[in-house]
């Protein structure tokens, strides 16, 4: 049987702020346990939350970047449940009046509707060792935005690829907007996925199954495909999909039941009496809109139309904001966007993909690119040179001179070498004259280049050789 698949996403991202959402402790990853804590974020008796203005502004920014309406009044509610990572036994969140309502994100050719983005506090971290669980509240109270797609509206996400594209684009928007760093391995961006299937064309929604504990896009992709297959199998066998929450086991590549509908939590939401509602004016929204930096779609447009880059090259450069920023810096120094982009998509990205950081300064890179364009260095030589000085604190120009790799084609030196090679490879020369085979010519070019230690311009050597041998 054929089914329509409906995929919904709930995406959590930790906001980039200096302090936590409801107290002035540092919002910082990786500190020693319980060192960024105060009475508020550990929920000590008598402690009271005080809302961070910038956290609200960051949430508004996220909303504006995704075409949301901003609620004029935002309310914070308490979501009550007991768990050791939740210091107060309630999480301050938003239910009735989230900061952002009704947005959308374009995924391939679909405009995916998003229901809301609300601001809440993150929970602490649990570390399980032996028979014990250790509770660290450093992350507790870190501002977190939760985005929820609107599965009730068309169009839906239907495949794992679409979901991953949604997440990839969302992540880029958050990063480019300066809203969140979204480092996946630090858990700064996490997603819950819900999936339901219905017979193709039916207007009745199927039972929704939620999947939690999805860290990293790879497990999200596998988990979605696993769940679609699982539900298909149940439905094909005439069974009923149970409403439940499932947990994804990354190592085993399968999911298992975490919570069924019967023991669903009753969170007893109610407005947090310690916090006042927040009034957000049109002036606030316009002020924040102006603070929003250019977002990936806008930059992409510029790269393609103004810089003349291919869509592929654009995507490759924009995939990592650090690279894109470096690219822009280089363009400012040397306004040849296409030439610079070529170096990025080949040399620079390959090196960074290996996990190494950026190993070259803007000045050195621009010098090398310019030198190649000005034919002062042979392209191949330049590439080797770049590899050589990668990660080293040197001045490219001085180093190139020191190494004697600058091109020196016009001198008699190159001609003498050329003659020398023609003499030595007499047989080959004859063969070329008979066959006019390009490969043979290239061989001779190679010989000359070898003799000049790569200083000559191969193209020009080739032309000179051609000239000589056509006599």
């Amino acid at each position, binding site marked *: 049987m054929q089914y329509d698949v409906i995929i919904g996403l709930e995406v959590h991202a930790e906001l980039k702020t200096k302090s936590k959402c409801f107290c002035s402790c540092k919002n910082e990853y990786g500190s*020693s*346990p*319980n*060192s960024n804590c*105060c009475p508020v974020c550990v929920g000590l008796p008598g402690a009271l939350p005080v809302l961070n203005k910038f956290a609200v502004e960051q949430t508004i920014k996220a909303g504006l970047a995704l075409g949301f309406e901003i609620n004029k009044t935002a309310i914070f509610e308490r979501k009550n449940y007991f768990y050791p990572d939740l210091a107060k036994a309630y999480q301050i969140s938003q239910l009735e009046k989230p900061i952002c309502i009704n947005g959308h994100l374009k995924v391939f050719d679909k405009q995916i509707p998003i229901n809301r983005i609300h601001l809440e506090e993150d929970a602490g971290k649990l*570390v399980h060792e032996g028979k014990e669980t250790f509770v660290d509240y450093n992350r507790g109270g870190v501002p977190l935005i939760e985005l929820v797609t609107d599965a009730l509206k068309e169009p839906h996400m239907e495949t794992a690829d679409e979901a991953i594209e949604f997440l990839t684009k969302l992540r880029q928007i958050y990063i480019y907007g300066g809203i969140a760093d979204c480092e996946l391995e630090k858990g700064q961006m996490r997603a819950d996925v819900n999936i339901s299937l219905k017979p193709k064309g039916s207007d009745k929604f199927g039972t929704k199954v939620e999947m939690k504990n999805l860290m990293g896009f790879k497990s999200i992709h596998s988990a979605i495909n696993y769940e679609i297959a699982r539900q298909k199998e149940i439905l094909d066998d005439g069974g009923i999909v149970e409403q439940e929450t499932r947990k994804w086991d990354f190592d085993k590549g399968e999911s298992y039941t975490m919570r069924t509908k019967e023991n669903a939590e009753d969170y007893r939401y109610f407005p947090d009496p310690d916090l*006042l509602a927040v*009034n957000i*004016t049109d002036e606030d929204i316009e002020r924040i809109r102006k603070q929003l930096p250019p977002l990936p779609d806008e930059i992409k447009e510029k790269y393609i139309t103004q810089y003349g880059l291919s869509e592929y090259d654009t995507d490759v450069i924009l995939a990592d904001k650090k690279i894109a920023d470096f690219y822009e810096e280089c363009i400012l120094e040397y306004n040849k966007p296409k030439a610079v982009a070529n170096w990025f998509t080949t040399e620079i990205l390959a090196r960074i993909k290996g996990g190494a950081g950026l190993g070259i300064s803007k000045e050195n890179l621009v010098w090398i690119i310019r030198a190649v364009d000005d034919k002062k260095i042979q392209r191949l030589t330049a590439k080797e040179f770049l590899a050589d000085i990668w990660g080293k604190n040197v001045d490219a120009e001085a180093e190139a001179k020191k190494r004697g790799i600058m091109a020196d084609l016009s001198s008699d030196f190159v001609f003498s070498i050329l003659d020398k090679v023609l003499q030595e490879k007499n047989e080959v020369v004859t063969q070329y004259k008979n066959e006019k085979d390009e490969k043979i010519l290239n061989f001779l070019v190679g010989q000359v280049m070898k003799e000049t230690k790569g200083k000559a311009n191969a193209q020009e050597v080739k032309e000179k050789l051609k000239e000589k041998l056509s006599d």
Partner: protein
Amino acid sequence: MDLKEIQHLAELSKLEFSKEELESFALDFASLVNLADNIKNADIKSKRVLNALDLKDLREDEVKESLPSKIILKNAPVAKKDSFVVPRVVE
């Protein structure tokens, strides 16, 4: 209110009661709910009052010193490795 419902409230409250306690609670509850029910029938058109702050008046995003973890943990029934400790919660 039946005992099952009281039991559910106890679960939400993370409280345990003996059977006698539960029965006594059920009695009290009838009376409490009776009191609360007074407002159920009230003919109210008024809306909830919302006290609000303007965005610009919220706390600035500035870091202040945290408490030393030693103080954070000083009342903990069990603490090790600068952390609160509970029995392992996941397998």
